[in-house]
């Protein structure tokens, strides 16, 4: 009883593992997934990462007592494309049609950051040494933050898979974790990309078609309406949150420039103001740090949350689509059976086909229902966690900022 309770708790924790990226303060222990049936442990994390010129190499580290692995603990190096391959493999697998497939992590994007570092290098001559050093540090910090984030996102994907009762046993997943040589995933060539494009187009048209038909099942009808609207709105919210975060960053950067100039003023003023300016300069520099943290935390707790659940809700929509497709197939099979019976031709074949479609549909519906309920649970838990943390961080930063301002004011007024 003791063991299974603890196991259940851990299981729950595993399911709750929402996109808690980068909170350096509370990066707790990785959820240990315990399979209630086999009592096997599967723990996956990204223990290291290396950023090279145009790619990132992730070290995927696994600890497992599952019998099919050769060792208890092992690591492999993977790149982004291999994560995408794994995700696509899940999507294309008919057996997983009834699951919300964990969304693939976004591609690591250091372009903007790299551009800024390059521009800084070019502009080195036009600024003072202190300014250059300061800006360089800031940009490096930014680069590091992006890097950490991409690591976290790739890790979350793997954890979600490891937490899923069925997907965790997927063969491709195990190969991904264990096979210590290059998976030779080549990027899709032009032809394949074109095929994807058309597939998406057809899918969208179908989505519209299928989406229009009212579902007899209330649960799914509600889910459909809900997910369609929710997906749109969360997309908008993610975009707006992103803009908000960037604005905060801009304000932070302005503080830095102001600090520099105040410093110069402080060193060259012939009056009492020199001390004053130096103190205020220091204040602005510290303000920059705080504002930058505010921006980073908003990005983490709000923007990332929204972006992640945008991807998840898309995965949910995909699931609904697959179910609707399967329903259409089932209805078509029924029609075919009726026609066969009428003509009294190939009736057995039609019957088998219809039974298969029926089973497929019902199985899919059943798992889809559970998956969508789990999705909601996960979503609510993740939002709660992130909104609470967001509020706590905002408070922490505001209080820190307030104290900084107040002590500076005391010092400035005291000098008079």
């Amino acid at each position: 009883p003791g063991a299974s309770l603890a196991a259940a708790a851990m299981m729950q924790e595993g399911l709750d593992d929402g996109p808690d990226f980068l909170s350096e303060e509370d990066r707790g222990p990785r959820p240990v997934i315990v399979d209630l049936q086999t009592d096997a442990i599967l723990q996956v994390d990204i223990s290291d990462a290396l950023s090279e010129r145009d790619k990132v190499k992730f070290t995927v580290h696994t600890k497992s007592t599952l019998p099919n692995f050769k060792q208890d603990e092992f690591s492999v190096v993977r790149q982004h494309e291999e994560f995408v391959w794994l995700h696509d493999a899940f999507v294309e697998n008919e057996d997983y049609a009834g699951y919300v497939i964990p969304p693939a992590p976004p591609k690591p994007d250091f372009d903007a950051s790299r551009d800024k570092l390059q521009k800084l290098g070019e502009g080195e001559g036009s600024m003072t040494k202190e300014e250059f050093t300061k800006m360089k540090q800031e940009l490096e910090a930014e680069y590091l933050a992006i890097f950490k984030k991409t690591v976290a996102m790739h890790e979350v994907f793997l954890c979600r898979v490891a937490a899923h009762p069925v997907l965790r046993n997927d063969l491709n997943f195990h190969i991904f974790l264990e096979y210590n040589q290059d998976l030779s995933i080549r990027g899709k060539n032009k032809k394949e990309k074109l095929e994807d494009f058309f597939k998406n187009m057809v899918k969208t048209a179908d989505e519209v078609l299928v989406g229009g038909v009212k579902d007899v099942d209330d649960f799914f009808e509600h889910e459909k309406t809900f997910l369609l609207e929710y997906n749109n709105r969360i997309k908008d919210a993610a975009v707006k949150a992103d803009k908000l975060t960037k604005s905060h960053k801009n304000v932070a950067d302005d503080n830095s420039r102001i600090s520099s100039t105040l410093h110069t003023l402080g060193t060259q003023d012939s009056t009492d103001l020199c001390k004053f300016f130096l103190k205020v300069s220091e204040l602005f520099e510290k303000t920059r740090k705080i504002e930058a943290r505010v921006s980073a935390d908003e990005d983490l707790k709000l923007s990332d949350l929204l972006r992640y659940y945008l991807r998840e809700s898309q995965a949910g929509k995909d699931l609904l689509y697959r179910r609707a497709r399967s329903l259409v197939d089932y209805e078509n099979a029924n029609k075919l059976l009726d026609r066969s019976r009428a003509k009294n031709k190939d009736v057995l074949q039609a019957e088998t086909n219809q039974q298969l479609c029926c089973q497929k549909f019902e199985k899919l519906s059943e798992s889809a229902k559970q998956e969508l309920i789990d999705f909601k649970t996960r979503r609510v838990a993740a939002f709660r966690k992130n909104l609470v943390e967001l509020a706590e961080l905002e408070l922490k930063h505001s209080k820190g900022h307030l104290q900084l301002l107040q002590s500076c004011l005391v010092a400035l007024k005291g000098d008079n």
Partner: protein
Amino acid sequence: MAAEREPPPFGDGDVEAEGDDLEFREAEGGEDLFVSTTSTLESSPSSPEPASLPAEDISVKSNGPKSDTLLDDDHEDLFAEATDEVSLDSPEREHILSPEPTPPITPVSPTLIAPRSEIKISHPMMFDRSKEIEEEANGDTFDIHVSVSDPEKVGDGMNAYMAYRVSTKTTLSMFNSKEFTVKRRFSDFLGLHSKLAAKYMHVGYIVPPAPEKSLVGMTKVKVGKEDPSSADFVEKRRASLERYLQRTIKHPTLLQDPDLRQFLESSELPRAVNTQALSGAGILRMVNKAADAVNKMTIKMNESDAWFEEKQQQFENLDQQLRKLHTSVDLLVCHRKELSANTAAFAKSAAMLGNSEDHTALSRALSQLAEVEEKIDQLHQEQACADFYLFAELLSDYVRLISSVKGVFDYRMKCWQKWQDAQATLQKKREADAKLQYANKPDKMQQAKEEIREWEARVQQGERDFEQISKTIRKEVGRFEKERVKDFKTVIIKYLESLVQTQQQLIKYWEAFLPEAKAIA
């Protein structure tokens, strides 16, 4: 008054759209006028200028006969003042009006963001500096208070203008009453400044520059666009006019000036025409152009100038840094406004998301998040106002003030040059006289002797003027620096206090939200 509304046609006789604030052909028109005025002054027998520099006074012509006699009186006063050695601690020189803006940041603010709030033209003076009867730490008392308020649009279309109420409260006996109010328009302020600049700058007084003209801003107001951006423009102008007056009355010498008194007291002011040439910047440009000509000569100054050289360099450096800082603060204002707009957009989006969310508690929390963000948007708007009205405007005022300081230094150079030129001319006259001695032409010799006497007098006057202007500048710079220190400390502290308020509010909002987030079940 109406008759004076049409400005005299400048050279090319283009039809000008009327309005006192249009900046047409400012440079050329100004220069034309300049030249003619100078010659008028020098040819007049009762030249009001004991100093032999032309006063470069445009307004002498523009305000009718009355001002000439005023000018005479003024010059007597002026020189009395100058030799009087008004000490830095004399009561008149005491800190008259603190430039401190009001602390409380009320929600009804002149927003700098265009579409989202209703702005009335006369909104509560957020950064009104005159309402304070502040005691400084060193116990200064205030003899005079000035405020500029209640902008009112007068007239229609392109002939329209804004009239501002200028209110004075004073215990000084030179005024006719203790409290009085007049209506003034922008060109009146420019006219005042041009008179003061003309009278005092060339003898070394740092005259505060008038606010800038703005063609675009004013046109919008004239055309009647009652949108928030023109309200913002009017508020910005009102505030800058107020600061201008407050700085001017703080100057002990300028405070004595009858033109200033007339400006504050007279119910009717003769319309300052030719204001195209009278913008503060216009005058300074002219001053600095003269200065450039001076600087092109290699002027070898003597030892006592180490102080002047040092100070000039200091002001040059200060100018550079203040401009840089101003640009950065401007950018901050811009980004803060963007932040506000993005916060508002996010708030709306979050509200929509909350609506879609089918989990009740989460839905409610998201709605509350939207509300918090809306309130935070309001905070950002107010902070952007503080960023601008306190910090940015302080810097822009001082950039222009320093132009004035530089102008005064350049007048000194010109003064020195004039003295040197007089010496050179005297030398020539003496040589000519010596030659005549040998030629023995009695009538010419008489003339030569007279000329020598004349130029000897001029050389003496030149030396006196130079010493006087040097002395005045030293005093003025001392006063200016003292004011600068006080100004910066006061305003920046006020600004930091605005930041404190913002953080305190933020804390309140997030503290209110946190339990709501925790309540998601």
